[in-house]
């Protein structure tokens, strides 16, 4: 049933992504600007799949140093101790706050990894023209958009610990090399989610009916 309902684009209309005015440009391939809000009209986000893939691959590469390098280095009376994201989670767990450890584990390890897998799957499904599970894929996209920001949690934790624990020479905390990679993973996956156009999920038609334009 869902495959029979076609998008506005296939009927020659363009929906403004800024103000949602539906208009029918004279030349569908060069729609120009929205008459209401003046934004540049595009039928689908420009090179959506290519940009999303590029950002996902870049984030996946940076995910390795983000987890391998320390995010915090604690200096106590001359002795240094470095924590990666995982050892930070273990520290929280050992100190009795298993609930906080779980929150940080989910936000810092599972959400970024889940986003990379989900966005890769969504891009692949669009490129292959899959027509099944459209509702599930649309929900997955919204989930990625909704929870992506929570990965920034560990960056904020590190920033406030560094800001507060500056009692030189007794004890001080410095940011490690990993924190910038981790921040980059979060920002790049958020940009990847923004560049993916969810309307592409609905553009494919079942092969039995053939492709309509």
């Amino acid at each position: 049933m869902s495959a029979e309902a076609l998008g506005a684009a296939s009927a020659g209309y363009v929906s403004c992504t800024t103000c949602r005015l539906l208009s029918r440009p004279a030349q569908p391939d060069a729609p120009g600007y929205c008459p209401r809000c003046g934004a540049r009209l595009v039928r689908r986000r420009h090179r959506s799949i290519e940009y999303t893939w590029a950002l996902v691959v870049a984030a996946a590469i940076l995910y390795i140093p983000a987890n391998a390098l320390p995010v915090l280095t604690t200096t106590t009376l001359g002795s240094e101790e470095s924590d990666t994201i995982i050892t930070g989670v273990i520290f929280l767990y050992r100190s009795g706050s298993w609930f906080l450890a779980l929150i940080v584990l989910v936000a810092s390890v599972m959400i970024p990894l889940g986003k990379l897998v989900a966005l890769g799957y969504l891009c692949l499904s669009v490129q292959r023209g899959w027509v099944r599970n459209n509702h599930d894929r649309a929900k997955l996209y919204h989930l990625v958009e909704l929870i992506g920001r929570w990965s920034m949690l560990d960056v904020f934790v590190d920033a406030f610990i560094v800001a507060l624990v500056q009692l030189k020479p007794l004890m001080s905390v410095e940011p490690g090399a990993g924190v910038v990679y981790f921040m980059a993973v979060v920002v790049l996956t958020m940009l990847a989610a923004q560049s993916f156009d969810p309307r592409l999920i609905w553009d494919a038609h079942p092969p039995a009916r053939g492709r309509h334009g």
Partner: protein
Amino acid sequence: MAHPALDTIACPDCDLPQTIPPLPPGGSARCARCHETIARNPSDPIQRPLALTVAAAIVYLIANTMPLMGLSAVGREATTTILGGAQQMWLEGSEITAVAVAFCAVVAPGGYILFVLSVLLAVRKPPAPPWVGDLLRFAAFMQPWSMNEVMLLGILVALIKISQLAEVVPGVGIFSVGILVVLLAAIAATFDRHMVWTHVEWADGTLPAADPYTRLGARIPA
């Protein structure tokens, strides 16, 4: 450029064109295909978000100037503010991270509140000039990067982690951030940016017509 009646819109998530029926105050409409919410008719689309935004602006100023938390260990004390978190990152050589923290914690929420406030003040007297649309675009750009709720959880985790090493005291800043999180969520729930477009003068010079599906459009003398 030709366009169909204003009550016909394409779903922003699946592009299905559909006509939105008149909605009761407080009502919303879901897409016939992908079931996402595509239209809302907040019962009080201007005054209520305006009051919340003014409150958010005041709380934002308090949250950014008062100390978030203090620490005392072996007779020494230290406090930090929101911007202090970014500043120390910068001083320790993580400049890029410092910029990201400052943007998501201070610039984006502040920009969002400021732009929404200006938009709401401007649309009270329709037709609003076209630059209101630009402010609305800036607000929409800032919104995903405004991470007050994530920061609040981050502050709490940091508090608990530091409390293993030294005595920490929550400051006024934390409570202000908590109130700001609630206010920003309330603004998101009561402010419908698509309502604003029905009040703004068109880029091609057309004056806005009464909004067909919220029936809250500008009343322009004929």
